[in-house]
């Protein structure tokens, strides 16, 4: 049982480039989330999904897109990368409503945009 896996672990992008952060979970969880964490700050929700084919915006969705074609995968797309998107990105999943269930986090992707 691998839990939540994320790739890549590290990435450096040039301004204006695009990339996809991959997230996969093997726990058959319907609920999945993308957070970003800036230094000294808590995690901020970017997008979330309550099941395959259903996604919605979180607190800081601008500059990002997501898709959920399967229960297992929840990729995050960065279009036209900007320095403000330099952050650590965490994917998480839960077996039920976020408010009432433990969230399992992936190891994170550290992204630098220069």
């Amino acid at each position, binding site marked *: 049982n691998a839990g939540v896996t994320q790739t890549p672990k590290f990435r450096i992008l040039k301004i204006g480039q695009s990339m996809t952060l991959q997230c996969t979970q093997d726990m058959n969880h319907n609920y999945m989330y993308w957070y970003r964490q800036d230094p000294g700050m*808590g995690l901020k929700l970017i997008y979330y999904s309550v099941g395959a084919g259903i996604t919605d915006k*979180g607190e800081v969705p601008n500059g990002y897109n997501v898709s959920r074609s399967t229960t297992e995968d929840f990729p995050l797309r960065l279009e036209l990368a900007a320095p403000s998107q330099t952050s650590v990105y965490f994917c998480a999943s839960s077996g039920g409503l976020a408010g009432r269930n433990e969230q399992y986090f992936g190891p994170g992707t550290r992204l630098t945009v220069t």
Partner: protein
Amino acid sequence: QQPVQSPQAVILREGEDAVINCSSSKALYSVHWYRQKHGEAPVFLMILLKGGEQKGHEKISASFNEKKQQSSLYLTASQLSYSGTYFCGTEGRGGADGLTFGKGTHLIIQP
């Protein structure tokens, strides 16, 4: 709205106790606690639900005052492994849309 945590940082000797507080300006239905070590992912500690239900690790103690919209995490007889940053999280609008986390409390345990 982001919950407010206090203190921002704590330095303890091994064996000492600590209390970390979390307060919100909005009505809370649940409070979550996570610990994150440097360079690692957050790890679940506990959920406290409105009505008194708790889910989490037996060795962790916490309280949830629904009327005051506050929660406290109690770390007793601290061990070196307790070091890290502790985050409280509150649920979103409908309970499904992720958590809103505080800025964290940095805990350093010295031998």
